[in-house]
Each structure stands twice: as structure tokens, then as C-alpha cells.
């Protein structure tokens, strides 16, 4: 079976290199957390995977589909959720989901059933027929997540999906994501909340200066830095420390 995501020699520069020859593989059906300091290149990488940015060079394959040559086919099996939920203020959650289902051409009856289920699971039922314009950040994020899941993507890409969510909303989102992984979807998620990565992810990748500098399970990362019993925070800080710091 093809890997869920295969990135080879990926590069993107703006005024300076943001992603610099990145290689990354995410296996089908796993929950993969991508960590890195601010400006490390995590979001840029995921935006290129989602088709929101064109790389300068490199290859991206999603379940074996070349995402750069066949973007429409790749997008059909992918979903993207950013940290800043972009939804339509004048639509209700149900209408938003109906629109997303129209974009992905999901069978209406199936889309309606899935939407009802997602709205219920994410606790949006009381607001399903209210316009999104008065929603809190957490509610907007849940609507965006429901939109990402309504077409049952095989690869779900999430960029800081828990930013700004209260504990209850964060728990609902995490539960929905774990349930998706259990039912066979693959998730790749960036987060600054290391505890989330530690608890949810099967494997963790650490990006620094546009390159993957460490990867593995928590245990593998621990052995990578040679300090057993360290928390993920200690391991992360050790890994991303700049080369000049390490030399000192």
C-alpha cells in the first residue's frame, strides 16, 4: 500500500529558504505530528502538500498520486484545516457543509447524513441553523473541521487546529480526529502544544530551518537525544537547538 504522504527534496524560498530539501514520509493510517519552532517551515510544507503553495522543487505524492502533476486527483482525497478558520459568515454550518459537499461532489444523501453526524459529534447541533457570523473562534474551528471531514478524506492535514480552543472544544476535536484515525484515515498535524503531540501522535517529526531534523516515536526521539525519561519538551528543545548553540 502506498504511503499516505511522500515528500522528496521539497524546497520553497521566499526572501530566504523556508523549506530546504525536505524529505518526509507519513504512513497510511497513522497520526503524525509535525513539530518545529516558529518559522521552521511546518506551515509552508503543509500548504504545499494541500496545493496552496507551489514548491520551487521537489515531489509530493499523496497515496501515490503526484500532487504537483495531478492536483485535482490529490485534492479529492485530502482535507486542509488551518489555524485561522475561514468560513462564510453568512452561511449556517449546515449550508457550509452542503457547499463543501458540492465542491467535493459528495452524494447529497450521504453528505446530509455525514453532516448531521459531524454537527452532533462536534456539539454544533444547537447552532446548526444559525449564521456563522456570531460564532466564537472555537465554534468556527469546529465548523471548518466538519467541512474538512464531510467528504471523508483519506489524508487530513491540520495546521495548529487546537489554537484558541477551550478545553471542551479541544477535547471534542481531538476525539473526532482519533476516531478518524481508528477508521483508517491518516492525519498530519502541526502543533505547538507538545502534550497533544505526545498523547495523540504515533510518530513525531521535528522540522528546523526547513529540514526534518528528527523523526520517530517518542521513545525513538528520546534515544535520539540520549536522555531517557525526558519530557517531549526537553527532547524538542534539544533537537531544535541551533547548531551554533550545540557547538557552544
Amino acid at each position: 500500500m502506498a504511503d499516505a504522504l511522500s515528500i522528496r527534496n521539497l524546497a520553497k524560498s521566499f526572501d530566504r529558504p523556508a523549506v530546504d530539501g525536505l524529505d518526509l514520509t507519513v504512513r497510511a493510517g497513522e497520526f503524525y505530528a509535525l513539530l518545529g519552532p516558529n518559522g521552521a517551515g511546518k506551515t509552508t510544507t503543509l500548504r504545499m502538500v494541500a496545493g496552496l503553495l507551489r514548491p520551487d522543487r521537489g515531489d509530493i505524492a499523496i497515496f501515490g498520486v503526484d500532487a504537483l502533476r495531478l492536483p485535482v486527483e490529490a485534492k479529492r482525497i485530502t482535507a486542509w484545516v488551518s489555524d485561522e478558520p475561514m468560513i462564510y459568515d453568512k452561511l449556517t454550518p449546515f449550508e457550509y457543509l452542503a457547499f463543501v459537499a458540492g465542491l467535493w461532489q459528495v452524494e447529497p444523501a450521504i453528505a446530509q447524513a455525514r453532516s448531521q453526524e459531524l454537527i452532533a459529534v462536534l456539539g454544533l447541533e444547537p447552532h446548526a441553523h444559525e449564521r456563522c457570523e456570531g460564532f466564537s473562534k472555537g465554534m468556527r474551528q469546529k465548523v471548518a473541521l466538519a467541512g474538512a471531514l464531510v467528504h471523508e478524506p483519506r489524508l487530513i492535514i491540520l495546521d495548529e487546529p487546537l489554537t484558541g480552543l477551550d478545553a471542551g472544544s479541544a477535547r471534542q476535536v481531538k476525539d473526532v480526529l482519533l476516531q478518524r484515525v481508528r477508521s483508517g484515515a491518516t492525519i498530519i498535524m502541526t502543533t505547538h502544544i507538545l502534550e497533544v503531540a505526545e498523547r495523540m501522535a504515533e510518530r513525531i517529526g521535528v522540522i528546523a530551518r526547513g529540514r526534518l531534523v528528527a523523526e520517530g516515536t517518542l521513545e525513538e526521539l528520546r534515544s535520539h537525544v540520549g536522555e531517557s525519561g525526558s519530557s517531549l519538551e526537553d527532547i524538542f528543545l534539544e533537537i531544535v537547538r541551533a547548531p551554533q548553540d550545540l557547538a557552544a
Partner: protein
Amino acid sequence: MSAATLAWFARHEARLAWRDWLAMATAGKPGRLRWIALALVVFAAILHRIADRLITPYVDSIGSDVATFLVMTGSAGLTWTLMLSQGMESVTRAFYSRSDLDLILSSPASGRTVFGLRIGATAFGTALLAVLLVGPFVNILAWRFGPQMLAAYGVVVALALLSTAFAVLLTTGLFRLLGAKRTRLVAQVVAAVVGAGFVIGVQAFAIVSYGNLSRVAVFLAPEWVEAAPGIESMLWLPARAALGDIGLMLALLTVAFTVLALTIAATAGRFADNVIAASGISHLRTVQRASGLDFRPLSVARALRHKEWLLLRRDPWLVSQSLMQLLYLLPPALLLWRKFGDKADALVVLAPVIVMAAGQLAGGLAWLAISGEDAPELVATAPVTPGAVTRAKIEAVLGVVALAVLPLVVALAVASPFIALVTLLACGMAAAGATAVQFFFRAQARRSQFRRRQTSSRFATFAEAFVSISIAAAAGLAAAENWQAIFALLFAGLILLAAYRSGSRQR
């Protein structure tokens, strides 16, 4: 230490206003400032030339008589309604814009000071714009009749102060009457209707009564002149002041200053309360009873078109802004009605007006559909080619334009099928041209930034306007069966080509 004095706030506001203006004028490229200054000088020279040509036929008839007073007072009244409209827009923004009010009102600074200052800034902005617009006419009159005519500037400033005071009273009154949720929309719609409605109304009256578009014809109508009070009437005080009565002008200025100061003093105390009430509306929810988008089998293109139309329908402010552009179709529609059944020659003038309106309407809608996408990442990550998305959005725009202009074209067809056909084709071209310009200069923005769409690229603004004007001119010429229409069309094509190249460079 008391830092938040009136002067301190004034400096802060002036700095922000200057940077805002600079960003707007230069579209974020300060290096263009020299060129903009040069363009403004050229523009001012052209306006003076136009003013001179417009004034010249009336030079001998300008004097201290009822006819002159009628034209001046009528024109001042129309200018005042425009100032009132601008003032209402600014005052509404002062209540609803959240940019820095949370910071300021949560500080120990006085909300009364902030409000007073912002209303003062509104009055200043309104006066400045009016002075710039009226300036060429005043300068030409001063050149021909002597420097005492410069007193008109004082009258314009007085009118601006009075219009701002009235705008404050009207908006705060609406706040009390309708509450925070409804005031925003109602104030914006009232402002738009007041701004354009009176001017268009006078034009419509001129058409219905006299069969032409001249406002002067309305003011100088014999029945008006006969009904007007004598030259010593108080009604003519502003006109007499504008014609060089310095004492009267200073008295008017003093009254206007006093009225504005009293208005600010009377309303500033409630400013913080109104702002807090306005901030509360972002938490209000609207339950949507009838679903606009439901789970039906739709093609991607239909889903996109449907979404665009639904979002437009559910945004009364955007609808009002678009309808305002249609309001300008009223005078030509009336002219059509007046000339109905006449020779086709009279209808030739209508084709360009309808075409121009179609272009303007399409430009605004195209910006909303192409640049004003509130969920760009959703659409970009959907399994649809960018071309298909653009096509669907353009279809949505052209659909609305067709809905707006088709009834007029059908009415035109009854009088002259040929002119109707020319108008229809030209409307399609103008709408397509304006949409193309918006496509060439597409830049992601929120729909709420609609008001500022023209600041993202000066070139796009001018290109959109000139493409519409050129195609409108071509329509007029073609309707008159003049082969030179081809040159106007070629010119429109050249502008589109330049817009395409400039847009590509910018991206």
C-alpha cells in the same frame, strides 16, 4: 501624568490618518508619491479647464439676482446632501470600527475626547473633499470677478461643519431609535440614498419635466423663479456669502462651528455606550429559517454560483452598494420612458449610460466573487481546477448584471431593436471587461473590505473605469451607426491588454 490630552490624541489621529491616506494613494508603494503629486497637479489643471468652460456661458448672467441665488443655493443643497452622506458614513464607522476602540475605551482616556476628535476629523475630511471639488469653480470665479469670490470657500467649510453636525445627530438618533444592530445598515443605506438620491432625483425631475438631464434647467425653471422669495430673503444668505460678502461668510462659519461644537458636547457623553452596544452585535446570532444551500445534487459550478448569489443576497449592505450603482440607471430609464415611441435618435444617448452602469456593477461584483472570497483556502484545496472556479464565479457575476440590465434592453428593443442589440452586446463586453480587470488584479481580501477595493491597485481602478467608458462610447457610436465605434473598442482592448500585463507583473 496625563498623556491622553486632546492635542496628544489629535497628533496620534493625524499620524494614523496620514499613513492611511499615503497607503491608499500609493497602494502601499511610497515611491509613487512624486508621480501621484504630479498626477494631482495635472488633474487639478484639467478640472480648472472644465470649470472655466462650464462657467463661461453663464458669466454675463451671474449677479445678485434670484436666478443666480437659485442655482447657487440648489447646487449648494445638492453638495450638502453629498457631504451629509459622507458624514453619516464616517460617524457610523466611528461607532462600529473595532480597530483601536477596545484599546482606547479600556484605557483611562476619556471617550468623550476621542469622539469629539473623531467627529472633528470627519468634519475636516468632509470640508477638505468639498473644497477640492468646488475649488476649481471658486478659483475660476475669483479669477473672473475678483478675490472676494474666495469667500465661497468659507461657505463650503460652514456647510461641511453643519452637515457633520447633522450626520452625528441623525446617526445617534438612529442608534436610540433602532438599536445597535439595525443602525449600521440603516445608516449606511440612508447615507447612500441621501448621497446619490437627491442628485439623481433632481436629474429625474429634469427629465420628467423638461426632457433633459440638466440640473440648472430645474433650478431656473420659470415656476421655480416665480415662486422663489425676494433677494433679501434669509434663504439666500449662503449664496450671498459665497458671492463675496465676507462678513456674512464669517457669520455663517461662526454659526456652523457653534452648531458642531454643541452637537459634539451633547452627544459625546453617549459615545462609549454606543460603541459598547455596537461591539455587542458581533455576538448576536441570526437563525436562518429557510435554507439557501441544501443537500441537492449540484455540479461544482452550480454550487459555486449558488454560494455567490446567496452570500450577496444575505448581505444587505453589499446589496445596497450594488443597487446604488443601479440607481444611476434611473435617469436613463426615465429618459427612455419620455422618448418612448420617438425617433430612435433620442435613444442613442441611452446605450452608453446603460453600458457604463453594467460595467460598474460588474466591476464591484467581480471583485466580491474573485478577490473577496472569505474561504479562499477551502476553494483552493477543493478538487476543482482554478479555471473552473473562476468560470463559475464569472458566470455568477454576469448573471446578476444580466438580471439588472435586461429589462432596460427589452424596453429599448420595443423602441429600437438595433440600439437594443448594440446595448446588449456592449453591456456584455463592458461586464466582461470589468470582470477581466478584476481577474488580472485579483488579490485575496475579505468581503468586508469591499469599500477599499479600489485602493489595492490604482491601475486596476482606472483600467476598470476606462474600459467601461470606452465600451460605452463605442456603444453610443455604434447606436448612431458611426463606424468610429471600432476605434473606441480598440482603445478598450488596448487598456485590457495593458491591465493584463500590469496585473501579471504585480502577481
